[in-house]
């Protein structure tokens, strides 16, 4: 194993992100860093440097699964890392992301009012009123925060579940951002 670098501690950033946003949902916007940097790196650099070295989520699963021994460390079913499932899950994930952006637009246009809930697994609504005080930001900004936080928490929960049952970083094998950036890299490589 190589020497530890500063970016080996990004798992702390992941914990900070989830805790701070838990109390003030507007911080959820910082999650856009996790969406933009990997794509920028893949498009410009043609590599997965972010996934490989910097992803706080992946590191968190490694720390919990490997170092804290919370993972069974068994091979995951092959279909979980098959191209069909990976690209299918990516399509579903970004469809839901698009829906979230659309909901934000509806709130911005005044067609819908702000809903202070965090939706887990795209299904279960959890009231989240403490995290936002009305008027502290435009309502569409808050709506996007709730949406993005829902997405981030949901993906982390899925990641934690597969971490416990299979290998620590099983989430990475079907992470939509990982699939997307690998796809970009493969296109660039051709």
């Amino acid at each position, binding site marked *: 194993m190589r020497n530890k670098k500063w970016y080996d501690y990004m798992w702390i950033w992941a914990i900070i992100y989830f805790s701070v946003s838990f109390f003030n949902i507007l911080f959820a916007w910082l999650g856009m860093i996790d969406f933009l940097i990997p794509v920028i790196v893949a498009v410009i650099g043609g590599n997965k*440097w972010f996934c490989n*070295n910097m992803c706080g989520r992946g590191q968190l699963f490694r720390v919990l699964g490997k170092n804290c021994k919370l993972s069974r460390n068994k091979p995951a079913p*092959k279909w979980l*890392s098959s191209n069909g499932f990976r690209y299918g899950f990516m399509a579903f994930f970004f469809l839901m992301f698009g829906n979230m952006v659309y909901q934000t637009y509806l709130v911005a246009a005044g067609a819908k009012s702000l809903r202070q809930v965090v939706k887990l697994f795209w299904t279960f609504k959890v009231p989240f009123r403490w995290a936002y005080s009305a008027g502290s930001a435009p309502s569409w900004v808050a709506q996007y925060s709730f949406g993005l936080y829902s997405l981030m928490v949901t993906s982390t929960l899925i990641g934690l579940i597969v971490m416990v049952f299979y290998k620590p*970083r*099983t989430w990475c094998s079907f992470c939509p951002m*990982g699939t997307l950036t690998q796809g*970009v*890299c493969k296109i*660039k490589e051709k």
Partner: protein
Amino acid sequence: MRKANVNEKRCVACGECVYTCPKGAVNIKNGCFAVVDKTICVGCGLCAMACPADCIKIWEGEQNEK
């Protein structure tokens, strides 16, 4: 000598093998798949154990999974 063999078609290029390898023998080639430097690899199998896509096998010489 036993070496790590990567199934490039199934590799997700997450980089866990690169992180785990005690010899620094693995690299992610342009974000596409992991490449093992067979001259450095000692066939310890740590990468195969860490691989979340289960696409690294420790085999004698050059063999590829069908």
